[in-house]
């Protein structure tokens, strides 16, 4: 909402600088988005020319400046501006001049008397840039010119952010009322001639009084449309409107002044003599003033005559009844339309207006007739004509609820100790009716404050007008209670910390992706959460996988020369389960280039491979006994068909890791040949995760193990996992730990065979093993490998 200071002063006598007024707005909770200062607020400043400059004897940055004032007079002043130069024409304020509120007095600056000052643009109140340096004027301006004549009358335009609960502040009167309560100054209502009018008005037939609880209007016949008065044009221009003609401008003017939206119809476009307020018919067509054609449903509220609609109520008039240059008879509407209905209609048909913005927040139902009178006054002054009597359909006068409360309750809500007298003063200024004679007070707000309905609302008013600084910092109070974080939160945090420790960088990505990406990653769009009103193509779905975004991060970074990447993200992924959205805590990562913990300058580069990734996954998941890895039987389409493992929890697949499919890299725009990736959901892991329980500790071995190397030859097709299983599952009377130390295929073993070598460590918890015990265990293993896998000792 734009508020023009000079207009505001029509309603309240303010003696504040624009900055001071802005401070008042801030304290009231009205955010000031900007202040645009207009014109000059100073006196006694004249144009002078610099004729001589010398250094100040006692300062290294001040100067003594001689100026020519014209008519042979000169003046010496002290000046510290860095941009001062001989020949400049500048604004000179001499002793006695007024700059805003400051009146200039003689000054002694470092021992030198100065009888005036050369002003900067800020000092003249023309700008608020806090830039240093004097204002240099055009060299053609005659000496002695009153600088004020170069700028218009002082004014300021405030852009205020009005919150949606305070539609009453969407007018100059409303803002003046608010300041009146804050500053304890009276509000001056505009003086209007109470034109009773002559002649019949149109009849008003309100067919839905819930949607339109008040409808008033009057005819003015024989008007002569013309440009509106200069002050109206100027003020509307300040509001950001192009002045059109008096009939249109005045309705707007009254809206910005009093907050009451009005509409003027060309009487001669209204058939018959009844204004009908009704709901639209289904599929009724209507063309707005701006030419937009609407097809309406039965909810829209229409103004019209008995045959046709002439306006979409409270939002915009129709093309068929607008004011023309040659309009002679007008009907002025001043009504109240239901707020939610106006909002709904405005949104549904995507039509908005200053009027709609006021009605949808809630206009002042009590203002309709006063505003009509005010507009009549202005119409008659500008355009002449003859006003009819007023028709006012207002069957059930609106009253705000009566709030009953005690001053203690107000202080209780705020934690304050505002005195009862102070509260009385505040509420009395705001109320239509206020009674504080008993222990329980009653308060009823005027019609323009529909937001004051219970004592909490009044507590806010008390704090606002007493100043929010009256709220103390409360004494501390104990809160005893404990509850763990949600498991998923802790688990994601645990993984994230570990990954960062392993050299991965955390990313955060926007949660949207497109249908094409879904398909590229093998997801059926039918199972993804679609956004109805997506803001861009390619952002239509909530992502069911984090990998597309991480691959984009790879693409983005490699394009910028960051080729060595280890990235991860932890967040929720989304899918539909039987049509309902499911959110899953998910963790994913990608890896490419060299290891991001770069080698020392003289060491060879280290590249991650599948087994590095497997190491990362092992490190992350080794605490979860339910977790195992198995080669994918069928890898996801975006992964390498042969280099991809399933992550299983109790045999149930929770994710994968491996190499990204080269085609996926290509469609992601990635030139790097190899990218490793992993992704898994943690829902299954949450079950076995607890912040309270730990795996019981095993004592560290007290006796040294006996070591043996085991080297066997077996079929190439036998996997390491099969060998490992035999070693793990073969029953032994001693404990076994084994490490793979070599894997060999080539000339020293037969075709189709491979050799595999382990270091075996045999031990017992209570003794050092004897050789024969170790030998026996070794033989048992050799036998088992032979029996299960056909392995031969090498």
């Amino acid at each position, binding site marked *: 909402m734009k508020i023009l200071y000079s207009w505001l002063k029509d309603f309240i006598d303010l003696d504040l600088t624009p900055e001071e007024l802005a401070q008042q707005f801030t304290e009231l909770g009205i955010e000031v988005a900007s202040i645009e200062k207009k014109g000059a607020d100073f006196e006694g400043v004249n144009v002078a020319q610099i004729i001589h400059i010398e250094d100040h004897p006692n300062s290294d940055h001040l100067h003594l400046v001689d100026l020519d004032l014209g008519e042979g007079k000169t003046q010496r002043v002290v000046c510290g501006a860095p941009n001062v130069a001989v020949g400049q024409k500048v604004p000179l304020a001499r002793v006695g001049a007024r700059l805003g509120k400051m009146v200039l007095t003689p000054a002694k600056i470092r021992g030198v008397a100065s009888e005036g000052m050369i002003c900067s643009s800020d000092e003249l109140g023309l700008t608020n840039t806090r830039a240093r340096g004097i204002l240099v004027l055009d060299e053609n301006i005659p000496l002695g010119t009153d600088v004020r004549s170069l700028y218009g009358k002082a004014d300021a335009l405030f852009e205020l952010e009005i919150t949606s609960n305070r539609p009453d502040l969407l007018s100059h009167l409303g803002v003046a009322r608010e300041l009146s309560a804050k500053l304890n100054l009276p509000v001056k209502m505009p003086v209007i001639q109470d034109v009773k009018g002559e002649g019949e008005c149109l009849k008003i037939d309100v067919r839905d009084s819930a949607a339109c609880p008040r409808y008033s209007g009057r005819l003015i016949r024989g008007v002569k449309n013309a440009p509106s008065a200069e002050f109206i044009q100027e003020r509307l221009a300040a509001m950001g409107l192009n002045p059109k003609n008096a009939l249109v401008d005045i309705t707007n003017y009254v809206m910005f002044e009093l907050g009451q939206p009005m509409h003027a119809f060309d009487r001669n476009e209204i058939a018959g003599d009844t204004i009908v307020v009704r709901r639209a018919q289904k599929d009724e067509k209507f063309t707005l003033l701006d030419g937009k054609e609407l097809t309406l449903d039965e909810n829209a509220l229409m103004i019209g005559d008995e045959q046709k609609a002439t306006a979409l109520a409270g939002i915009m008039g129709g093309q068929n009844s607008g004011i023309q240059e040659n309009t002679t008879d007008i009907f002025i509407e001043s009504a109240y339309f239901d707020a939610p209905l106006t909002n709904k209609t405005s949104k549904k048909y995507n039509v908005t207006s200053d009027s709609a913005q006021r009605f949808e927040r809630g206009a002042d139902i009590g203002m309709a007739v006063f505003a009509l009178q005010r507009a009549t006054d202005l119409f008659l002054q500008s355009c002449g004509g003859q006003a009819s009597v007023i028709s006012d359909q207002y069957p059930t006068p609106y009253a705000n609820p009566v709030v009953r409360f005690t001053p203690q309750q107000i202080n209780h809500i705020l*934690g304050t100790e505002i005195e009862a007298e102070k509260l009385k003063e505040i509420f009395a200024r705001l109320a239509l009716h206020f009674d504080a004679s008993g222990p329980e007070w009653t308060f009823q707000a005027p019609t323009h404050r529909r937001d004051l309905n*219970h004592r909490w609302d009044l507590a806010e008013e008390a*704090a606002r007008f007493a100043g929010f600084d009256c*709220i103390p910092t409360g004494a501390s109070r104990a*809160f005893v209670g404990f509850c763990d974080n949600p498991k998923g939160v802790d688990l994601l945090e645990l993984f*994230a910390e570990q990954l960062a420790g392993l050299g991965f960088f955390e990313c955060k990505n926007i949660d949207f992706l497109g249908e094409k990406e879904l398909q590229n990653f093998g997801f059926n769009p039918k199972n993804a959460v679609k956004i109805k009103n997506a803001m861009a193509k390619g952002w239509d779905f909530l992502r069911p996988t984090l990998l597309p975004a991480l691959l984009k991060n790879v693409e983005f970074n490699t394009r910028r020369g960051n080729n060595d990447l280890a990235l991860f993200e932890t967040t929720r992924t989304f899918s539909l389960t039987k049509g309902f959205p499911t959110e899953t805590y998910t963790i994913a990562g990608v890896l490419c280039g060299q290891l991001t913990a*770069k080698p020392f300058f003289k060491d060879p580069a280290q590249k991650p491979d599948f087994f590095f990734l497997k190491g990362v996954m092992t490190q992350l998941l080794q605490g979860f006994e339910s977790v195992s890895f198995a080669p994918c039987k069928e890898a996801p389409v975006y992964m390498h068909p042969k280099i991809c493992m399933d992550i299983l929890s109790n045999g149930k697949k929770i994710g994968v890791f491996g190499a990204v499919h080269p085609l996926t890299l290509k469609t992601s725009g990635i030139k790097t040949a190899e990218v490793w990736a992993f992704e898994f959901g943690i829902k299954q892991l949450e079950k076995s995760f607890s912040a309270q329980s730990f795996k019981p500790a095993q004592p560290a071995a007290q006796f040294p193990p006996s070591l043996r190397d085991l080297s066997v030859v077996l079929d190439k097709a036998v996997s390491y996992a099969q060998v490992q299983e035999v070693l793990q599952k073969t029953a032994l009377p001693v404990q076994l730990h084994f490490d793979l130390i070599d894997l060999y295929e080539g000339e020293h073993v037969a075709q189709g065979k491979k050799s595999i070598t382990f270091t075996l460590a045999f031990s017992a918890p209570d003794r050092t093993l004897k050789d024969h015990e170790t030998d026996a265990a070794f033989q048992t293993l050799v036998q088992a490998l032979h029996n299960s896998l056909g392995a031969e000792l090498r």
Partner: protein
Amino acid sequence: MTLQEFQTLCSALEQEYTAKISAAADLAAVEELRVAALGRKGALTELLKNLKDFSIEEKKTAGPLGNTLKAALTAALETKTADLAAKALNEELNRVDLDLTLPARPVAQGRRHPLSIAQKRMTDILSKLGFTWAEGPWVEDEKHNFDMLNIPKHHPARDAQDTFFAETGSPLSLVLRTHTSNVQSRFMEKHQPPIRIMAPGRVFRNDSLDATHSPVFHQIEGLYVDKNVSMADLKRDLTAFMKGLLGDKTEIRFRPSFFPFTEPSAEVDVKCVFCGGKGCNICKGTGWIEMLGSGVVNPQVLKNCGIDPEVYSGYAFGMGVERLAMMMMNINDIRTFYENDLRILNQF
């Protein structure tokens, strides 16, 4: 040889070799002296051969004399050997010529995302202030995101949220939550006071991506409901929170505002940490920086969640993680957080 002569020879031998040992220049010289003194044909061995000529009584004196001499020379040799070894080691150590100013060998270099770091700091402080972590759905029904929070249908306050709507098979109209406040309605619906929760997480607004807006961003919600909770409690806890975040000298102020789910509502500003309140570019000359929105929980919200506003009262606050992180980390474009440029990520 008389006993006396023997004694004289002993002390002469000791003097001679002690001096020689102490003067030995290196380990080889020490070894030579050991052989010369204590070796099979050494001076001491030669001297001790005379023992056999002594009487038993004389031997009682001369024997220990010889032993003492042997021990003294052995000790002198050992000391000298250790001294020379230490000296040699010291020389060797001092011969090392390593440029210690070469760059560090990089160890694992991963980092958390700046938003995670900022959020963690905030949740850590809130956790110390007794707030429990609560979560809620990101795809939320309109009832919990709006209606229960006193943001009615067909009200401009609801329009102001620029909501994304989800297309699902659910009979409810679902939105991407526009704020973390849905956790308020979710939590209060299920729990009676005392309630003291925080709800960090992602929120969604249909805002185009530019330097100060992102369709996805992060908030942290705080909610405290108990008997006798007032604005003064809010001020105390937020002061403590802001001191934790920005330092012990931090001051806050309340400014009146409007949020549908709080009444009274307050914007919270902190005294500009960059200029100490004098006014600078960051605080736009006001001396204060807008931090978060807050207020007393609207009694209608409590009622909607089944909590009696005549018995209980509460406060709530919500803040943007990006906003705070941008200020604290000197980041001036919100898109920086979502580009994930390694050269930015590795700074935190």
